[in-house]
């Protein structure tokens, strides 16, 4: 006998880990549309399982709260139950000894407030609140509601051309999204419960790498309606709207201010993420429609808006957020300081900068900041540094973007708030002075930086790139008479501009800078509602059918990741960073799809995915 043992006292602890991990995965795959009352109950039941049993308000209170919540969930309760529940939670919050108890109570109380309507419906109407019903997770999470299980099934059968058609049913940019979509579809993928989310974007990339989008003919437009629609802005939103309206038989003219189509996909996203020739595949397919006319280098001012709205049957304004925001820093007007938008938009017209031998500092922590940093590396910079006020994990850029930038040699200097740009004798930027920060209290869900008691930091900088957001250039449209909220152009939920019968507005210029797929969703919505406003209800045939499902493969697998070229090689050019997903990798990923459009609630709602 020894005095100390290496064996844990609770012998099950060693085996608990994988079960806790499974629980965490299940939480991650929380299905959209679930009843919030059930969610609150589920949270409490996890907390109750964690109770040690020592303190009265927790050991006695948790089972009581669970019972009360079950009564509410099962419509056996009334308002008094909610009062009793709140009292029990307040007692635990105020008198609990440790966080297992008081934190659970705080969460429960927050839930009672956040879901007040849902709780009220349970005790008053005896039913879940209106709209509470589960749906197919990926297709619901995709803003454009692309029928993802259907195209995965088609891809899995090697029918990539039909997969392109199926994607195009809701999204005419299969290639652009295959390369740059932030894939919100994967966030609640049910496969996560088994192992990890299906690599949906990876499958889509395999599809468009196997068959180029412009090699898959678009459907023939429906018979001409004789209606004319003007689309202002040739980015993802405007072109999506133009594509669907043209398919419905309307004549569409796209007015684009710049030299080429694509919007931020060309003038914002660098070519190493979205090669121009790949973007052109989508654009060629869209422009192959005979009733889409494109006018480039034709910016629309207030007078032109007036003409378009009176001469056309409808106008869709989707001008994006193309202005670069600047910081109000001393020295920000120095030579060498520019906005991210300036840099990236010039590249869109093939005007590449030469930063050979220069020290570049990028201010910001979003995806655009990473785009600037990685572009600077490729432009030959001697050093590239990102200066950011918060921590690495607080960056709004996707983690993979941050990792890729680091791999390419970008230095991340976190907790550094820019104070001023220092200039040399010629008035040229030579350094960025930063005020060190300390990460502090969580405010509105995010830890906020506060000035730290540390000396100022000076980062040598010949070029300072400001990537702190984009501005909407809405002045011509406000002058024309459209409403704006600060700089965002206003629209109702159907994207109709208030005060106009035939003017619609959507995308970045309406809800602020967001993602390509969000812009596409707005364009699709606008197309449907413009068609309706013109007195039609056209239904489109995408030319592909949803294949029947195979039984689920329940064996856990690892998730196939999209491979990238070695950092030391790719950092020298603007060629695509990502490598193709192989046929066998794609086939394995496709087999992991659980066909939630057929199994589970999808058996009831999955068909909704087949029509708009």
């Amino acid at each position, binding site marked *: 006998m020894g005095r100390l043992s290496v064996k844990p006292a609770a012998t099950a602890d060693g085996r608990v880990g994988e079960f806790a991990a499974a629980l965490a995965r299940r939480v991650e795959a929380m*299905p959209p*549309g*679930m*009843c919030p*009352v*059930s969610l609150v109950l589920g949270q409490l039941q996890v907390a109750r399982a964690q109770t040690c049993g020592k303190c009265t308000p927790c050991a006695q209170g948790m089972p009581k709260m669970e019972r009360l919540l079950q009564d509410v*969930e*099962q*419509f056996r309760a009334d308002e008094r139950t909610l009062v009793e529940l709140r009292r029990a939670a307040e007692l635990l919050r105020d008198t609990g000894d440790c966080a297992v108890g008081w934190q659970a109570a705080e969460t429960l109380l927050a839930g009672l407030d956040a879901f007040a309507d849902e709780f009220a419906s*349970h005790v008053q*109407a005896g*039913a*879940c609140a*209106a709209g*509470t*019903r*589960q749906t197919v997770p990926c297709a619901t999470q995709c803003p454009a509601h692309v029928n993802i299980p259907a195209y995965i099934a088609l891809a899995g059968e090697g029918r990539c051309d039909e997969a392109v058609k199926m994607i195009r049913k809701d999204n005419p940019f299969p290639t652009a999204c295959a390369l740059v979509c932030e894939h919100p579809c994967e966030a609640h993928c049910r496969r996560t419960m088994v192992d990890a989310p299906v690599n949906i974007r990876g499958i889509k990339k395999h599809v468009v790498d196997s068959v180029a989008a412009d090699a898959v003919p678009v459907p023939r437009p429906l018979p001409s309606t004789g209606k004319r629609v003007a689309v202002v802005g040739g980015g993802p939103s405007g072109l999506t709207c133009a594509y669907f309206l043209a398919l419905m038989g309307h004549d569409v003219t796209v007015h684009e201010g710049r030299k080429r189509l694509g919007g931020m996909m060309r003038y914002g996203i660098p070519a190493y993420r979205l090669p121009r020739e790949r973007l052109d595949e989508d654009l060629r397919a869209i422009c192959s429609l005979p009733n889409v006319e494109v006018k480039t280098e034709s910016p629309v001012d207030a007078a032109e808006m007036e003409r378009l709205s009176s001469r056309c049957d409808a106008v869709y304004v989707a001008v994006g957020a193309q202005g670069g925001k600047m910081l109000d820093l001393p020295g920000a007007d120095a030579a060498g300081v520019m906005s991210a938008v300036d840099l990236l938009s010039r590249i869109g017209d093939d005007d590449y900068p030469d930063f050979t031998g220069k020290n570049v500092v990028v201010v910001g922590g979003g995806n655009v900041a990473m785009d600037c940093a990685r572009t600077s590396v490729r432009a030959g910079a001697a050093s590239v540094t990102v200066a950011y006020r918060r921590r690495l994990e607080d960056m709004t850029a996707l983690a993979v973007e941050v990792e890729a930038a680091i791999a390419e040699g970008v230095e991340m200097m976190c907790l550094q708030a820019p104070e001023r740009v220092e200039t040399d004798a010629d008035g040229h930027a030579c350094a960025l002075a930063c005020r060190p920060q300390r990460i502090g209290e969580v405010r509105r869900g995010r830890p906020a930086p506060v000035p730290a008691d540390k000396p100022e930091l000076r980062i040598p900088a010949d070029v300072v790139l400001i990537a702190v957001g984009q501005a909407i250039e809405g002045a011509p449209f406000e002058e024309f008479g459209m409403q704006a909220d600060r700089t965002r152009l206003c629209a109702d939920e159907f994207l109709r501009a208030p005060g106009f019968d035939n003017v619609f507005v959507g995308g970045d210029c309406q809800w602020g800078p967001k993602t390509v797929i969000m812009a596409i969703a707005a364009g699709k919505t606008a197309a449907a509602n413009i068609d309706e406003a013109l007195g039609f209800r056209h239904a489109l045939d995408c030319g592909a059918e949803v294949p*029947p*499902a195979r*039984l689920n493969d329940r064996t856990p697998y690892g998730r196939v990741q999209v491979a990238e070229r070695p950092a030391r090689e790719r950092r020298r050019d603007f060629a695509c960073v990502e490598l193709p997903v192989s046929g066998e990798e794609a086939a394995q990923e496709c087999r992991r799809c659980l066909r939630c459009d*057929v*199994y589970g609630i999808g*058996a*009831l709602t999955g068909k909704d995915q087949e029509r708009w």
Partner: protein
Amino acid sequence: MVTITLNGRPVEAPAGTMLVDAAARAGVDIPTLCYLKGLNCIGSCRACLVEVEGEGLVASCNTAVRDGMVVRTDAPAAAAARRANLQAVMDGHRAVCAACVRQDTCALRRLAADCNLADSPGPLPEKGAWDEAFPLQRDASKCIKCMRCVAVCREVQHCGVWDFTGAGPSMKVVVRDGLPISKAGCTLCGQCVTHCPTGALTARDDTDRVLEAILDPAVMTVAQVAPAVRAAWGEGVGLSHEEATPGRLAASLHALGFDKAFDTDFAADLTIMEEGSEFVEFLGSDKPRPLFTSCCPGWVRFVKLHRPHLAAQLSSSKSPHQMMGAVVKNTLADEAAAAGKRLFCVSVMPCVAKKYECAVPELATAPAGGDNIAKAVPDVDAVLTVREFDRLLRTVGVNCADLPETAFDNPLGTSTGAGTIFGRTGGVMEAALRSAAFLVTGKNPDFSACDTTAATPEVPWMSRELVIGGTTVRVAVASGLENTAKLLEALESGEASFDFVEIMACPGGCVAGGGQPIHFNSERGAFRADILNRLDAADALRCSHENPDIQKLYADWLDAPLSHTAHAWLHTDQESWQI
């Protein structure tokens, strides 16, 4: 074709066939509750589990055959799992079978007996609030969430009255958008009732009111039976269709104690005289095409609730049983008064919507000399579905098989084959065409030119063109409201154009009506339509205008079709009332 091994035997089935159907083709019966072929393959009840080699237990309703699949439906593990899931369904079902109108036709009850299930150990679910006056009744405590009503209403009947809401244990079937049923656009076709596996959905029971009237010595009870009733009424009282003749039907009405038993077929003939004349007049007018039939109250409700702009194009003719009610109330009034009795008119119908129709004040004959609709006494006092009629026969203990056949009472009992086929899709149109030609040319047409037996709910609509007295007439027939919606869309887009269109709300017409006897997962419409067609073929009289009693009715009371009296008794201004 794909070959699988089913219970050790090779079985062939077309690719894409679900296992449950492949098994059925091979004569192997797999229990199901939620599955409705082609419409509801949601795999929710898990009563149809089978064992597939290498895959374990799978739901046979949503698993398609694959070449080489080895399937056992008779494996003890599959049977045990099916039984366990059925027990779970039973645990959430208020199994008060003894007092349930579906006790003989409930799919769950049959499986419960087969699988030796126990009553639920927990408290019984609650019935939930419902408008008890509405002809469609719902008991939430018997709902097993199979979603068949949701699918039928949405996919087959284009109405989407039923929906589901909530998630998890809180998920339930509800009227869409939380509306009261009377405001939800329900046409009362009753297809959800005939496709409900349990007693959750039923038609309002009016048998007590009818029995009371029969027992009341101060009441003269008059019954009428719709054309389609004769094709199905025997199913609920254990008669074969050879035994369940119209003569035995008339005898059973008398056996129940009705003072008079009339045949709605007679009123169908009358409808043809009125609607046929209306159509002949319409052909010469420049009114917007087409004219729609108005015999089906489910269709009339669909128009008024979902396509009100078409109300003006509905025929002004009342439906046959309403015409019969009007004729009974107006022509037998003196006879009843002389006997010191008041008339009570009962329609036995294959229909749920007729329960609402008989209570529409505007469909009662307007009191002479006044326009006060509120004072109008209904022409038809009660409507029984065929299921209620059969229940009444069982309650009274009528031994139908032993009844000698009798004729329907006169003078409203003689009918023609044209009236009989009103009970199937296309029948109204065919009967109308037989007589329209006569009304125009004075000669009977070639029957084959009028034939509509090709009409079926499997295709959206059937159409034909024929020449009547030098005019080309384009007619179409549709049944089922999804089919109807497609036809209306084609008419509105100009893709199709017709002069006269017959619509029946139930797929296949009244033979498959929402008030007919229920057989789980067995669509009897085509079989019952054959019975009507055979009766028509065997009838000596096959054209409505040849019915001598119809001619006599016009001579004694109505003068001529579309006369002033005919309008007062037999027509309604469709635009003057809404639902």
